[in-house]
């Protein structure tokens, strides 16, 4: 993370803990679009995403005192809340059942796009991860997408792709290793 992003985060966190409405506004301006986009990608429903975005920021507002900055950045925390809420939603709703029972090619969104100019560089080393992601083979990308956007476990992914569990684990491990390495190299540059 850029040092000034840290300072920016620190200012936001402190103001949120002060219950300053201006800080909530600033947090929304910073993370609202990314949060909305992530939830739309997971739930595939814009109106649901609007409700969940409001829930995400409500949780941010109410739980900011619990936020421990030593465990990670504010952006990571906000996006983890958003992802968990969206996955909980699709798991608890009928849409989850429908999605699981439909063939992959009918249910999945288009693969993750690589459009550097359209992507907010909010997170650490996102550019390095994007570049690493493009270097993954289709199987590696698919397992990451299913885990991140669908919340599937490795065994669920194996079932869904009709591949041996060991093969899925191998794809997953190699994909994550590549991303991890890309982030480390990006940080050292």
């Amino acid at each position, binding site marked *: 993370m850029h040092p000034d992003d840290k300072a920016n985060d*620190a*200012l936001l966190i402190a103001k949120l803990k002060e219950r300053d409405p201006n800080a*909530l506004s600033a947090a929304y301006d910073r993370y609202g679009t990314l949060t909305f986009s992530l939830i739309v990608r997971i739930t595939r429903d814009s109106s649901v*995403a609007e409700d969940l*975005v409001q829930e995400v920021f409500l949780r941010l507002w109410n739980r900011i005192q619990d936020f421990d900055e030593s465990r990670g950045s504010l952006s990571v925390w906000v996006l983890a809340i958003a992802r968990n809420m969206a996955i909980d939603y699709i798991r608890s709703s009928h849409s989850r059942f429908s999605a699981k029972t439909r063939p992959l090619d009918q249910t999945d969104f288009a693969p993750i796009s690589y*459009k550097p100019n359209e992507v907010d560089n909010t997170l650490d080393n996102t550019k390095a991860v*994007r570049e690493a992601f493009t270097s993954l083979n289709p199987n590696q990308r698919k397992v990451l997408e299913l885990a991140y956007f669908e*919340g599937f476990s490795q065994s669920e992914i194996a079932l869904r792709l009709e591949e041996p569990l060991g093969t899925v684990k191998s794809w997953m*491990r190699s994909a994550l290793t590549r991303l991890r390495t890309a982030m480390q190299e990006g940080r050292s540059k």
Partner: protein
Amino acid sequence: MTHSEMEELYELYLLGALESDQASEIADHVHQQCSYCLERLKESSRVVESLSGLIELKQPPPELRARVLSIAPTEIKKSRSPWPAAFALACAASVALAFWGIGQQNRVEELNRQRNELRSALAILSQADTKTVSFGQAQTEPQGRVFISHNGGVVFLGNRLPELASGKTFEFWLVPAKGTPQAAGLFKTNAQGIAVNVLAKSVNPADYAAVAVSIEPVGGSPQPTSKPILIVPLG
């Protein structure tokens, strides 16, 4: 599982992709506050959540902003909890003036001013070219940071400044390598002794050797009338 075995699984754990027995084992270990694992987990969380940066951005409807902001109360609460020490320097923007005996009739204007100041500070901190200079290592001297951006301006955050006598104020100065100091804002400290000064205009760091703070009569001075209490070299 050993640490090295767990290291391979942190991202999968955060993704929720592990089977329940492995996930439980890691969760139990993490709950024991293992510092080694917590640090690795922090790294892994960056990898996992960076995946969200790969999606195509979609603009939320404009009305969603109002919905989200309706969560918060419409005015700043007067009761304040102690600020976490780690962020004491960073959280001064706009709050400091709230304690300056603002008349009730001026409260709305003052809150608007604070909001604008906070936005200006955030904008400066967000600039790609922002340079950060820390000052004050000794326990007894003023301590803080200066953020300076050619495109955004200058944010001064400080604490442990001396107490002001009645009729006095702090004045912030940009000090060129040659020539006289340039006045860059008046400020005071809040109840916690934290001060902020935001100068939201283009400032080329290369044009200045230092920033400084002096104590001046209320209303400020065109040039320092006292020896600066603080000089922070920018080089």
